[in-house]
């Protein structure tokens, strides 16, 4: 009884809160962000970059193709239950695309978004086999995915060692979740091919406790350490590596373990730490002039407005740029400015990122060029290695964008996606 009275009162209040009414004639981009909790240090810059770029489009160009953009932010705290709540709360508002920035939430949303017909873009995270667009019709992970990342890391180690790493030991320090487990299959296959020994060291959420893992590293003395970390785990791992005097140039993080917030706490000790990336770094781009003029100086920057030019801010901006370009492509294909999620999907599938296009957007040479097609939702999987310079306090690319090892990855992707298709009764195909 009390329960019902309370929930009735709650229901009335909730209804007042929920029914805001979908905004008419706007392009809705939900931003499932996390500005609280152990992953906030990484969630904030990404979300700031994502929102600022879309604000820039609104302020400078009047939106995309004349349609204003509405960003609905929803705090997930990197928690899947809240992520589901955010998804349900925003999907009714006409959401065009979901970018949850969490592999756990991605796994949760893949079936839901597919059933609801809303595309997802999991840029450099999420389910790797979503690259196979014939199975995952609504999910995209261009320009690169985790298995590409694992292969890039091994390729870089091969380069450094003149192409021979047989008999070496490589440790993988990973977040003990779907996210951290993603690269294991690939690294095992690559270990067979190149003859190195793989040492697996899981770190439990949230990752503040890593003494035993680094003690193991200190004892086993692996030639290289690869890290799949996120949030506070990154900072702790880099600090622990400094504490045991692990040579930083042999320590390579995935692109999610390569932000300023991760290396700064370790100070000078972090000098030489390497991280992968699939886009360029720094703020030496014309788009930053516009961002300053239209967004920051106008006082419209998201969050505290102090993240400009950081690695993850750039990545958030890159994600927003790719989404905006996909929306523009969709508008061209369908000849209407007011696109639906289904049209958005077509735009994403026909997306072509060329050098001219990026230069025209004020981001010359910012990311690799790639084309998306129905059979390939993952782009070309190019990646580069960046190195941290503690004195200058900046990242710099030390390699060119290189390809991943397709001969190993393609069969894995095809096997994993086909298994998913079979489990879920999907007939692969492009319609």
């Amino acid at each position: 009884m009390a329960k019902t009275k309370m929930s009735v009162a709650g229901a009335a209040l909730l209804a007042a809160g929920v029914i805001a009414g979908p905004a008419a004639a706007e392009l809705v981009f939900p931003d499932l962000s996390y500005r609280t909790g152990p992953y906030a240090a990484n969630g904030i810059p990404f979300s700031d970059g994502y929102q600022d770029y879309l604000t820039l489009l609104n302020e400078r160009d009047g939106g995309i193709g004349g349609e204003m953009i509405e960003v609905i932010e929803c705090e997930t705290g990197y928690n899947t239950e809240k992520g589901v709540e955010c998804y349900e709360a925003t999907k009714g508002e006409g959401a065009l695309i979901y970018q949850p920035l969490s592999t756990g939430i991605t796994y949760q949303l893949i079936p839901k978004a597919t059933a609801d017909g809303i595309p997802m873009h999991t840029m450099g995270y999420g389910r790797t086999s979503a690259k196979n667009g014939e199975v995952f019709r609504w999910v995209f992970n261009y320009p690169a995915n985790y298995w590409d990342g694992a292969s890039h890391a091994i390729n870089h180690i091969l380069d450094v060692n003149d192409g021979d790493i047989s008999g070496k030991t490589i440790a993988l320090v990973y977040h003990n979740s779907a996210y951290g487990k993603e690269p294991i299959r690939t690294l095992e296959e690559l270990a067979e091919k190149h003859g190195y020994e793989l040492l697996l060291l899981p770190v439990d959420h949230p990752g503040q406790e890593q003494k035993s893992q680094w003690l193991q590293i200190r004892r086993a003395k692996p030639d290289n350490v690869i890290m799949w970390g996120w949030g506070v785990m990154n900072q702790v791992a880099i600090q622990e590596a400094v504490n045991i005097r692990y040579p930083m140039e042999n320590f390579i993080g995935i692109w999610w373990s390569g932000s300023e917030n991760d290396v700064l706490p370790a100070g000078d000790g972090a000098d030489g730490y390497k991280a992968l990336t699939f886009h360029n770094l720094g703020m030496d781009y014309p788009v930053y002039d516009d961002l300053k003029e239209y967004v920051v100086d106008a006082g419209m920057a998201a969050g505290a407005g102090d993240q400009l030019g950081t690695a993850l801010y750039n990545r958030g901006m890159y994600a927003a740029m790719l989404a905006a370009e996909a929306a523009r492509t969709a508008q061209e294909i369908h000849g209407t400015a007011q696109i639906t999620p289904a049209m958005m999907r077509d735009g994403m599938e026909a997306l072509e990122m060329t050098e001219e296009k990026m230069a025209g957007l004020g981001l010359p040479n910012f990311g690799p060029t790639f084309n998306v097609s129905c059979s390939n939702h993952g782009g070309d999987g190019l990646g580069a290695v960046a190195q941290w310079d503690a004195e200058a306090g900046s990242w710099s690319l030390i390699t060119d964008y290189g390809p991943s090892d397709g001969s190993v990855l393609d069969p894995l992707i095809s096997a994993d996606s086909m298994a998913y298709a079979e489990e879920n009764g999907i007939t692969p195909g492009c319609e």
Partner: protein
Amino acid sequence: MLYREAGDFKTSYQADNQTFPIRFDRVGLRVVLVLALGVVPFFINDYWANAVALPFLIYAIAAIGLNILVGFCGQVSLGTGGFMAVGAYATYKLMTAFPEVSIIIHVLLAGGITAGVGVLFGLPSLRIKGFYLAVATLAAQFFLVWLFNRVPWFYNYSASGQISAPEREVLGYAVTGPNAEAWVTYLFCLLFLIFAAVVARNLTRGTMGRSWMGIRDMDIAAEIIGVNPLSAKLSAFAVSSFFIGIAGALFFAVYLGAVEVGEAFGINKSFLVLFMIIIGGLGRIGGSLMGAAFLVLLPVLLKNVLVGSLGWPTDLAAHLEFMIVGALIVTFLVAEPHGLAQLWRVAKEKLRLWPFPH
């Protein structure tokens, strides 16, 4: 005036012992059941089901389960998250191994398996009590999460270690999977909650419940008057784990659809459910429902008011939410240490006398 015993004559022993002795309550309960079963399903949408109704119903089942153990039998447990994980992984294995069997049977079997695991981890309760037992169940929590992370057989060797629920139907309507309609999942969980509440209520006022309460109030005295501590404690662990297992199964299969054991069933789950029964009221079935409602609905409500209506930044709202919920918990417990259920009981006492309190 309306809320009183006068004129409501009980002519049999059974009538005298009913759960709701006042006619107003009985009518109210029927109205609520008719509304919940007959009206809500026609209006519920995806948001209401997935963000509000399902978490409330499922946590309520878990809270009823834990309340049997902690509230009625006095055995403090911090293993709820781990036992929910057992329910979830048991359903997953059953669903994938026997796809032709009904999901209802899978959920009940998952409850049964969890009951078995619960009895196993309940064995130390025969020798240790209180805080020490809490630590022993904490071990269950960590061990079970570690087990499901460590042994690939439990997640069918999937690359990511995630388990995801395939689509299963009841009477031709999808209950699990992305195509399940909001009203189907809502009704499915609601029926399990009603089942849990009815069974728990009737167990706790019978022989079994009285022996649990005897153990809770003073185990040596209970033993002297003939309560067997072995069967009382282990049956409490079994029944409690059965409900928690059902809650875990529904949490995974119906509500989330895909889970990762460390995140979904971590120590935080154990604390959350424990807080629910403490805030709701230990040893009260209704308290479990109120506690679950309080801790599930309040954050969603606050978020919608602060972000949706007032337009505040999401991070500020998230921080404020912690502060407000925390402050409310403290306030409630200071005002009424016996929980929301006791507040409700006091309110009912007042209502009986109203409007002539003297």
